């Protein structure tokens, strides 16, 4: 193992030298996103983070593998092509796995494939097969092959995991659109990074306004402040 690639000890401990996460950094090889099963902010944040992390990297038109187990398929439904972000619409390959074992197999085959841009997984609950060993296996494979993995955990407890970044997300009230203040606006999420290697934990409100914007959670009403400008211009 090449020790030089590991982060120095100073970055591992939450201290002054650890970097604060911000959009635009390369995505971690293995992220976990905890979300509620009644809404689909987990998958939306996973896609937003993937698009944000891949923006710098040369990913071209490579496909995205989207794996769902049967329970998550029943809870939140299937991806709907017209509603997907335009950059991903033509690139999604969907895998409907019957059980968690099949989903883990598909995730591992996905991160092993060099022609994929990233792998998004959705697994509901805390299945026994998704233990620390399984997640460590996924992390090592993803690190070795350089294909980022975003695992969305629906209605799950925070169990042991070797994911490099672990988020908990929930939807946030969206900013008012300019032309119809009564209508739902661009999606917004409240995201809490509760465990990460190399980053300080923190909380943000994420907006997807063409590109990912992260603001501190207590910034007040954004819509009034944004005015005519794009959110990204702040």
């Amino acid at each position, binding site marked *: 193992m090449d020790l030089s690639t590991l982060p120095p000890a100073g970055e591992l401990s939450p201290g002054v030298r650890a970097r604060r996460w911000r959009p635009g950094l390369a995505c971690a090889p293995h992220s976990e996103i905890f979300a509620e099963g009644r*809404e689909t902010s987990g998958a939306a944040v996973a896609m937003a983070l993937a698009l944000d992390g891949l923006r710098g990297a040369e990913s071209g038109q490579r496909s995205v593998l989207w794996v769902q187990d049967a329970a998550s398929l029943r809870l939140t*439904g299937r991806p*709907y092509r017209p509603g997907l972000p335009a950059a991903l619409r033509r690139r*999604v*390959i969907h*895998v409907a796995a019957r059980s968690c074992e*099949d989903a883990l197999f598909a995730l591992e085959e996905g991160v092993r*494939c060099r022609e994929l841009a990233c792998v998004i997984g959705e697994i509901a609950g805390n299945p026994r097969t998704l233990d620390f060993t399984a997640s460590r296996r996924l992390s090592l494979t993803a690190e070795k092959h350089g294909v980022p993995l975003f695992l969305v955990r629906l209605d799950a407890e925070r169990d042991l995991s070797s994911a490099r970044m672990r988020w908990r997300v929930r939807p946030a009230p969206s900013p008012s659109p300019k032309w119809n203040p009564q209508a*739902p606006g661009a999606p917004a999420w409240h995201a809490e990074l509760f465990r990460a290697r190399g980053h300080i934990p923190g909380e943000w409100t994420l907006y997807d306004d063409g590109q990912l914007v992260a603001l501190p959670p207590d910034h007040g009403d954004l819509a009034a402040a944004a005015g005519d400008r794009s959110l990204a211009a702040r």
Partner: protein
Amino acid sequence: MAIWLPRLAIDRWRHAEGCAPGEEADAHPTALIAETAHGPRIEAANDAALAAGARPGMAVTDARTLCPALKAVPGDPAGDRAFLERLALWAQRWGPWAARDEPDGLLVDTSAVAHLFGGEAPLLADVHARLAGQGLAVRAAIAPTAGAAWALAHYGPDRAILEPGEDAGLRLAGLPVAALRLDDEVLLVLRRLGLKRIGDLAGIGRDALQRRFRNRRSPMASPLARLDQLLGRVPEPLLPVIAVPPPLVQRRLLEPIRHREPLDRVVADLAADMARALERRGEGARRLELGLWRVDGDVVLRSLELAAATRDPAHIARLLATRLDDIDAGFGIELVRLRVAWAEPLSLAQADLDGAAEAPGTSLAACIDRLTVRLGAAAVRRPVGHASHIPERAQRWQAPLEPEPASQEELAFHSRPLKLLDKAEPIAVLYATPDGYPRQFRWRGAVHEVARVEGPERIAPEWWREKGGARLRDYYRIEDAAGRRYWIYRAGLLGDGRGGLPGWFLQGLCG
């Protein structure tokens, strides 16, 4: 030599029914029909139906007025064509190659072959005997050109032979012009001109014929070109049917194997053999069939379909190994055979110079293959667009590496949810007025207060596809107090006369 099977469709139908001519099912008047724009028409009829007055080309309704007992059976033109192709291969027993003569004949090259059968007359007798033995009505003729043989087979005397020294023009002058293989339109013109026999054409001179049919390019529309082909003045190229044997490799085992490890070894060897066989042909496998012959004569078949053409032996062996887990070897397996049922061209590729191919990991096609073999083809799919207004129909699923069909994307000002539930779930909604905005709804046992709402987007039922009772849908995009975003609709309007109170459904979850 031209072979004509005048009753091919009926003979095949009778063979499928398993009855002798004029008995059992064939005793009833029966017609094979084809669906046309003007209703069902008769393609072929058996003897009983012909005797009752039914003729090929007649509408079934017309034939039923003549013969009310007429039984209509759908014809099988594709099966007839496939049968003719197999027959063309089989007819290579009489000559080096045979071509199909659509729709119901064969042309066999018998140059310098007849002496093997003892002359041309015994050759024709052999053709008649063998085809009649298969239950096919047959007429055959031998002539120096394909056109003359065709004319004699269809319109000449039975078992006609035109010797090379004979004057073909003189011999064929008495046959009708239809023997020239012309299309119906030209035959109609010739009949109106009063030219009924081939000999009549010779009487009016080449120049006149050339001028009358000068703008016809295809030989089927030009009597002069057909006449020249018949007399051998211009060549007539024919396209023979050639059998392409599928790539097949096999191992006969001296000692029957009963254990998994030697079987895996044999399968790996077969995959390597198959890779060499495919490379020689410049092809890659899309579907493979593995057959295992057991000592007691039982055969176990395992088939494998691949997402992209490949001949990588390690990949094929690995995928096949996952299909061998439930094999019962019994007293042992003595023969293993691997066959490619579907191959696609795959040329040799230059190894990637920039080293991308040497990067760790698998290619996309290999990844899809592994997923498909374990999870099934229905589990690994890609969403593609489809022309429909109804949201659940606007998306279809297809195999991941198939080319995407051209489709108009959803309009940019329509906002659609990120995910769609497989089946829209009914919700209980509180509203101020029946056609107004929803205020509150209950879904999966929890109450959501509607904070913001946009809509309705009205999607009318597709009348060209659905029954008249289908209700329109008014879609609303809503956000509840916690910020969760949903896509809900109301099916129908109050008092639209298509059912009771309008129902509310939650169909999509927005990001």
